């Protein structure tokens, strides 16, 4: 079907930069875990993990360069899981 690939832009440098960011964030999350944040500790670790995950999705998995369709579609399983967890907690937290 021919070339429906867009003109290729080299991403090699970007990948290395993102990798360094990811290593840095890993260091940060370990450090933050050592601090006494109480209830916020889990929130902080999930937040940092989500930033790392977003970097992998956006750059390594190319979501940044994909059509809008892919970007919107990715929200669907995330929303589904969020809603399912939230509704389950409406039971667990109020028993």
């Amino acid at each position, binding site marked *: *079907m021919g*070339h*429906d*690939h867009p003109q*290729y832009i*080299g*991403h*090699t440098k970007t*990948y*290395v930069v*993102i*990798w360094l960011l*990811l*290593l840095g964030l*890993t260091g940060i*999350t*370990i450090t933050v*875990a*050592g601090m*006494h*944040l109480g209830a916020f*500790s*889990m929130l902080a*670790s*999930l937040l*940092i*993990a989500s930033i*790392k*995950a977003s970097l*992998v*999705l956006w*750059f*390594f*998995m*190319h979501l940044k360069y*994909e*059509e809008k*369709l*892919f970007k919107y*579609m*990715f929200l*669907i*399983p*995330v929303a*589904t*899981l969020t809603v*399912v*967890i939230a509704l*389950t*907690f409406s039971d*667990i*937290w109020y028993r």
Partner: protein
Amino acid sequence: MKHRDYIGAKLGMWLFLFTEILLFGGLFLLYAVYRSVYSREFHLAALGLSTTLGAINTIVLLTSSLTMALSIAVLRQGNKNASIACQAITIVLGLAFLVNKYFEWSGHIHEGIYPDSPALLSRSHGEILFYGLYYVMTGLHGIHVIIGMVAIAIMASLTYRGAVSAENFNKLENTGLYWHLVDVIWIYLFPLFYLIT
């Protein structure tokens, strides 16, 4: 009737990844519930895991994602051998991850901590569930790592034979997507099991 739909193939792979998110999602749901009910005991149990080993494994997988992404980039730039090298390194890093995991698991099993073991059952409920989730979630993740390594090995062979090339790389790209998702799942597993304070 042969035609190549590059975007369609990529769409199909993303849809498959969505199923993996929901598959692990069920386990994350269980984790969230039990951690909220047994937060102190989860913390206690987590002390039995080595943060160092967990961190090493995180770095190993993050690096393997880099080499995986590079393998596609260099292939598209025309460098077949560099691509195969990157794919090979990715597999080796995956193997390193599994070897690490093997040592972790054997360590616990040696101490008598495994599902339904007397030593584990003598501990608190939260600790029993923590280790149950630990084995099941890292176990399922490990199976996915193995599958990924096999898939990349097949891709390396196809790249060598020219069936995967700069013009025809979407199989490699899709394999990369799978591998990155395996990495993303670990990105969440690491703090949830190794960094509980």
